[in-house]
């Protein structure tokens, strides 16, 4: 049963090794991205059908249930999109293209494992590999001062938070004597554990996971990392590890019907409020687009946490739906930054006349991020707020809704520069410059998802429902 479950990962390992060796000879170097993409899509096909029942797999270290199935598909799709994006990125030079895609594939593998693990050891190992590889990828452009500084900052911050998490795990191991989450949850119900240490260790674990999802007290490194890293990597950071973070939050804190710690809903509610508000307010005055998108992803993390704060079935479904839409919205926005190679908002002046397609895709993604009705972002926001209101979190819902108004302002600032301003900054780019078809393909894909899924979310998400 285990081998069948791990087929996609094994295929990816095979492709990763192939990509690594391919990068040795110049002839194969040109094909490495295509091979990587093929590997990811192949793995996507091999994914087992989403089975309702959840069975322990791989010596009770992994779990094959609906959540892991959904997140594994999401990670594969996300990684494929990032591979397409990085094909369009000129900064990734010829000579070390091989390693780049090798790292992306290994990142995908470790995330897929982390998402479906039910054992703290497995969680830690997968989480640590994801972190290490993302440190390398963030600091990938050695000759660029920004990239290496971002890499180091991300490393130091990340290492500390995972260190704290590990200490938390060790305490948990001491308390329960086991590393298996479901057994721990069962033990908590017998109420014979020493409560303060349990809370302390759970908060330590939360520190590690929250760093990945960039929730507020642990978000400090994210903006610098997103700004410094090469754009496809900051796109990957905003969707890959974030989705994994939320999957782990889901597993650790909400694995069992009643949340592991009683006050989880209040904790999540306040974290969500602070994250949303801080993310949105700081994003207002940003001039660098990547940094602005970083803060916007922090704000969206707050939105997703809101879905978790509503501890009910529709909350979890809302989170999954939101993450799916969020991947496409973010890839669309970052994709346009890759396409136009423009970092500052002012540089976007008059883009709608220079390169209408890029401006169109960018504005559709931004309006979808803002959550305006005809687009998919609205349906995502709608479902999440519905879950919050169903759980009677009225204050949270009101603040979330007002945040979406603030959010619209800074999204509009970019759209204003592109469409409304009459001045035209002489960007070196115009529609005649040849672009990698893959990047255009990825952008059109995000465009379709943003528009179609807004009108017909039922098509892809039959299980999405508001029923209590």
């Amino acid at each position, binding site marked *: 049963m285990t081998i069948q479950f791990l087929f996609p990962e094994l295929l990816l390992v095979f492709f990763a090794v192939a990509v690594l060796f391919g990068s040795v000879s110049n002839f194969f170097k040109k094909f490495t991205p295509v091979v990587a993409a093929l590997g990811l899509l192949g793995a996507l096909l091999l994914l087992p059908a989403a089975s309702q029942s959840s069975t322990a797999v791989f010596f009770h270290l992994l779990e094959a249930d609906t959540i892991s199935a959904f997140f594994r598909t999401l990670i594969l799709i996300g990684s494929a999109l990032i591979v397409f994006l990085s094909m369009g990125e000129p900064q990734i030079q010829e000579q070390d293209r091989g390693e780049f895609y090798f790292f992306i594939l290994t990142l995908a593998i470790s995330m897929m494992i982390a998402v479906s693990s039910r054992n703290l050891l497995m969680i830690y190992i997968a989480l640590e590999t994801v972190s290490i590889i993302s440190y390398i990828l963030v600091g990938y452009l050695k000759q660029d001062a920004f990239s290496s500084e971002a890499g*180091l900052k991300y490393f130091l911050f990340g290492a500390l938070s995972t260190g704290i998490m590990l200490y938390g795990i060790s305490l948990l191991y001491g308390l329960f004597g086991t590393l298996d989450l479901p057994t721990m949850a069962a033990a908590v119900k017998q109420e014979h554990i020493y409560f303060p240490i349990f809370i302390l260790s759970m908060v330590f674990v939360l520190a590690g996971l929250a760093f990945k999802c960039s929730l507020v007290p*642990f978000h400090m490194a994210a903006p610098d990392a997103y700004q410094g890293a090469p754009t496809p990597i900051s796109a990957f950071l905003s969707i890959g590890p974030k989705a994994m973070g939320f999957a782990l939050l889901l597993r650790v804190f909400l694995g069992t019907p009643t949340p592991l710690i009683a006050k989880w809903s209040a904790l999540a509610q306040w974290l969500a409020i602070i994250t949303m508000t*801080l993310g949105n307010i700081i994003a207002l005055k940003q001039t660098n687009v990547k940094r602005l998108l970083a803060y916007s992803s922090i704000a969206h993390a707050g939105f997703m946490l809101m879905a978790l704060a509503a501890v009910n079935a529709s909350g979890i479904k809302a989170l999954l739906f939101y993450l799916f839409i969020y991947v496409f919205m973010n890839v669309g926005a970052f994709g346009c930054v890759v396409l136009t190679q423009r970092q500052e908002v002012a540089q976007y002046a008059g883009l709608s006349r220079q390169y209408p397609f890029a401006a169109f895709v960018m504005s559709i993604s931004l309006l979808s991020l803002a959550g305006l009705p005809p687009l998919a972002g609205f349906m995502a926001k709608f479902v999440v707020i519905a879950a919050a209101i169903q759980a009677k979190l009225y204050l949270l819902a009101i603040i979330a809704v007002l945040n979406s108004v603030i959010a619209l302002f800074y999204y509009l600032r970019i759209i204003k520069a592109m469409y409304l301003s009459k001045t035209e900054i002489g960007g070196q780019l115009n529609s005649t410059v040849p672009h990698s078809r893959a990047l255009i393909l990825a952008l059109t894909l995000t465009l379709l998802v943003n528009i179609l899924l807004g009108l017909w979310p039922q098509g892809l998400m039959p299980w999405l429902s508001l029923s209590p």
Partner: protein
Amino acid sequence: MHIAHYIPLFPFLAFVINIFVGRRLKIGSAYLAVGTCVLSFLCSLKVWQGFLQGERSYSLGTWLLIQGKPLDFGIIVDPLTIMMLLIVSFIGTFILIYSIGYMHDDPRFSRYFAYISLFMASMLGLVLADNFILLLIFWEGVGLCSYFLIAFWHERPAAAKAGIKAFVTTRIGDTGFLVGMLLLFFTTGTFHFSDFQFLRGPEPVLTLAAILIFAGAIGKSAQFPLHVWLPDAMEGPTPISALIHAATMVAAGVYLVARCFPLFAAHPAALQTVAVIGGISALMAATIAVVNNDIKRVLAYSTISQLGLMMLGLGVGGLSAGTFHLMTHAFFKALLFLCAGSIIHAVGIQDIRQMGGLFSKMKVTSVTFCIGALALAGVPPFAGFWSKDEILLTAWNNHHPVLFAVALLTSLLTSFYMARLIFLVLFGKPRSELHAHESPAVMTIPLVVLSVFAALAGFIGSPLKEATGAYEGSQVMMLASTMVSLTGLGLAYLIYIRQMALPQSLLMSCQGLKQLLLNKYYIDEIYEVVLVKPILRLCQGSFSFDMKIVDGLVNGVANVTQFCSGVLRRTQTGLVQNYLLVQVFGVVLLIMWLLKI
């Protein structure tokens, strides 16, 4: 098939044609206007004849559903309406003929006749309406035409301002009228005049409603508080002053009170206010007219005074007296204005102090002017005497001594200032070199016709007399009113022709009073200070309030968020230590919060 509803349609047709193709018709537009006016006159005669054979008012159809009940419009046919129809169309025809000559060389000739036809249509419509809403529609239409025509020569800024002043002041009255109408509707449940006879005894609410409706009449008939617009309305062409601001439109207020007379009669308090307001207006306007030096302004104040007299007549319960004076006044006041018009047309100036000795140069105008003046002054054989006498008699019979005295004093002043006008303008030696010449025939013929009617209208008697019981004249009252008129004439004769020392010195002594009257009791200035200036400041204030406070709040919220963004941005210092510090601090905070330490 009843033809009454065709009466307003003919002039309306002329208006539509003149507005769109008038410029090409040139003189044709004038003939079209006059023709439709004559047609309306003939229809009115037909309606009168039909009325004698017993045809009564009829309904046109449902216009609107209010509170579920259908509100249908109709035409009312009774002596009052017929009288008004005849007066309006008859005098209108002759004034139109007169204005062909008067407006001959005006660039916007056809537009003038278009507006006059619209006015005729709405005035005729007004008198035919059988409910308040239809009346209000034509009521505002009449106000609109007076606005257009006052501001006809809009190159002169004074004319444009006068037009706006007229429309706004009448509109203030109309708001009271609207509220009164609604009050009436909600207590009696109907807008129709015919339902007034079912009114039970006096109710405080209905009294208030009647007074508010009278407010509309005050606005339209330029009575005391809202009279300021009529003297300024003289900026318009003189035939307009004759038709609208003397004979017909200003009489609409009196017509309205007469139409709702059963309502007013049922509430003595309302009737009392009508009489009092009428008295005040009559006296005040007469005193101002005595000292005014502009020929049209004098006649304007005289109109306000006579209208006050009519209101007084109605106020003391004399429905037939009031309406009778309305009819006769229409004739001789229109005549006086037309004569004044032909004088101005000839001499070009309006200040009577520079005029004099025109009798020899303009024979026909002067004779008709004298006939009109005598009629207005109330000298026995002429029309004014009979109707004024009837008002005095009704006031005396219905035990209103104070009002009777006011009426008497007003007729004294009236005869005085009319005599003053005649002596200063027509007789004596010319005070400045004026090459006056007689007006062309097209202007003098209407003068002659109107003078004949001004003389003989008295003998027709009040059209409503069979409705309101026989009226027997009392010799004593007739003698008294004749004596008053003659003394007025005599006094004026002594002062202005004989330049007698005594009356001269008497006049010099009350210089302060003269100054007060010359400035029209400073009412205009009071309104300016009390009403117009504060409202303008209020608007300016509310606009700046809107910009600063309400808009300020909105922008303020935006600026506050921007400011917070600026502050919070600086938390990202870029130093790794700070990041680690925030994280550890976050962990500690969370633990303390969760464990409630």
